[in-house]
């Protein structure tokens, strides 16, 4: 079949390479911007050393953001971070952000380091988050990133695109997190492997840039390379800059899925699998030991704001602890100025240092044997947030806040009468 129509992702890669490419082709592609964090940074440096690379090719378009073990929880973590810090100094990186600035996927766009139309690679699986800015971004391992730093390019297979058309308008107390959980239920944990997801439709156009980031963030949970969303004025306002805007030609996507956002209700991903998604009302009442509001999925200002609306004047249940971790210093400062942090603290929640917090299950709120967490993050694999016997429900900020107040999984619509 000879088709002239191209998807946005095919267009971005074609633009970068300088010839028209189509899904399925293996290409060597120049990379506009690359980044890693304190965790993957250690192995990136190891690999560069083994390659014999002394100077990286483009230090001005490479960023390191310390976010995973922040502040360090062990002497070993601190020692490894010192190694990465030294490397950043030696290479003269101007875009190095030591601890306290925020989560890499939040800080990079906040600083305006990327723009629509770019090709971005990061040594973290949730690099797909940046696809929400109308660019192509994907996560790779440390050795791949080292190769990019050495050569300025990498190989990839141009992905097919699954376009997800989100019709209708989200109802009150239903967020883009509920929508992306529903999409994960439909597509499954491997339904988009090697492919690009593109989120489109009126529900996505109506969303804030922050809500769009939540959607693209979870593309990798379906195996996807990226979660592309067309750029618009909101994108440009967030980044403080514009770039080359690309959109998919009608009929270009290899597959189209329609989702009725208008009829969606709050939902959760039940323990064990991100695709194990059910309406909150079906699992209401399950006990919760810890509620976590934060991460690169839902640690932005609007997430804190929605949770604070529910927590204002209420208390976190005595059998539950709640941890709030802003996704960046900028988010933290705005939440502080606007009184949101007071609301959390008065409700009995703890507010932590910006970074990944307890998301990856190593510090700042690890859960114990048989404990249950409800979390705004993106993964609920066995043992992700702590003991092997512990479990995690993934939910929206609204559902997490409502569940914290009740001490059990709770439909947030109860609080918004």
């Amino acid at each position, binding site marked *: 079949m000879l088709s002239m129509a191209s998807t946005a992702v095919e267009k971005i890669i074609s633009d970068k390479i300088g010839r028209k490419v189509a899904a399925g082709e293996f290409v060597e592609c120049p990379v506009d911007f690359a980044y890693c964090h304190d965790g993957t940074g250690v192995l990136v440096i190891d690999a560069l050393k083994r390659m014999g690379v002394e100077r990286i090719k483009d230090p001005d378009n490479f960023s390191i953001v310390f976010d995973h073990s922040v502040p360090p929880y062990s002497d070993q973590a601190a020692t490894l971070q010192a190694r990465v810090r030294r490397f950043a100094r030696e290479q003269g990186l101007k875009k190095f952000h030591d601890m306290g600035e925020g989560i890499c996927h939040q800080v990079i766009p906040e600083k305006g380091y990327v723009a629509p139309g770019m090709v971005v690679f990061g040594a973290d*699986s949730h690099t797909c988050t940046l696809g929400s800015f109308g660019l192509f971004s994907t996560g790779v391992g440390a050795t791949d990133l080292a190769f990019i730093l050495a050569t300025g390019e990498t190989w990839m297979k141009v992905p097919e695109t699954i376009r997800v058309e989100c019709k209708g308008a989200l109802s009150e107390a239903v967020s883009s997190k509920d929508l992306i959980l529903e999409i994960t239920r439909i597509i499954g944990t491997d339904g988009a492997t090697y492919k690009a997801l593109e989120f489109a439709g009126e529900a996505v156009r109506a969303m804030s840039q922050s809500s769009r980031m939540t959607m693209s963030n979870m593309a990798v949970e379906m195996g996807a390379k990226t979660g592309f969303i067309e750029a618009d004025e909101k994108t440009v306002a967030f980044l403080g800059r514009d770039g080359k805007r690309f959109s998919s030609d009608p009929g270009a996507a290899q597959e189209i899925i329609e989702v009725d956002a208008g009829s969606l209700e709050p939902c959760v991903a039940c323990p064990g699998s991100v695709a194990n998604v059910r309406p909150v009302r079906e699992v209401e009442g399950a006990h919760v030991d810890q509620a976590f509001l934060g991460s690169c999925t839902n640690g932005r200002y609007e997430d804190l704001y929605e949770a604070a609306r529910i927590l204002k004047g209420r208390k976190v249940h005595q059998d539950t602890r709640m941890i709030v971790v802003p996704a960046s210093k900028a988010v933290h400062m705005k939440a502080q100025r606007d009184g949101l942090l007071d609301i959390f603290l008065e409700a009995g929640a703890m507010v932590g240092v910006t970074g990944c917090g307890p998301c990856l299950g190593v510090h700042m709120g690890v859960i114990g044997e048989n404990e249950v967490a409800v979390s705004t993050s993106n993964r609920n694999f066995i*043992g992700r947030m702590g003991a092997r016997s512990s479990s995690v429900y993934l939910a929206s900020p609204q559902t997490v806040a409502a569940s914290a107040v009740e001490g059990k999984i709770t439909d947030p619509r109860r609080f918004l009468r």
Partner: protein
Amino acid sequence: MIKGRVWKFGDDIDTDVIIPAKYLRSVDQSVWPKHVLEGVDPEFSSKVRPGDIIVAGKNFGCGSSREQAALAIKWAGVAAVVAESFARIFFRNAINNGLPLIEAKGISKIVEEGDVIEIDLDSGVVRTPKGEVKSVPLPPFLQDILRSGGLVEYYKTHAKRDQK
């Protein structure tokens, strides 16, 4: 040709069960193979022998980009992983570190734990006691990376020269 004894795992074996995050920030990298696949089988690292082969279901290696997952498997002595399908970052990480991967549809149904199987990387054929499974062989340049022993070695022999 790779020949070895099989250890079997299910679908969606994620990087958190392959190597939990709590072991990642370790100055001593020898801890990784000691905890490999601990999340599904705490005894695995003491049972696995050099040259053994992992056979798994779909979406093996899903989750984080942590390269320690591929390294832990390789350093535990595993000669290859055969699965119904792989998550893409894990796939790249394994090839980049010289750990052979074979995507063979139907493999998990005909192979039992303890079987001895044979893998021909060039043709993509996997021979099992119950017959052969044909997979799509890796594209030649990925086989090159694998044969070099990983992306670092590949860079040293190819890319570096091209840069000059």
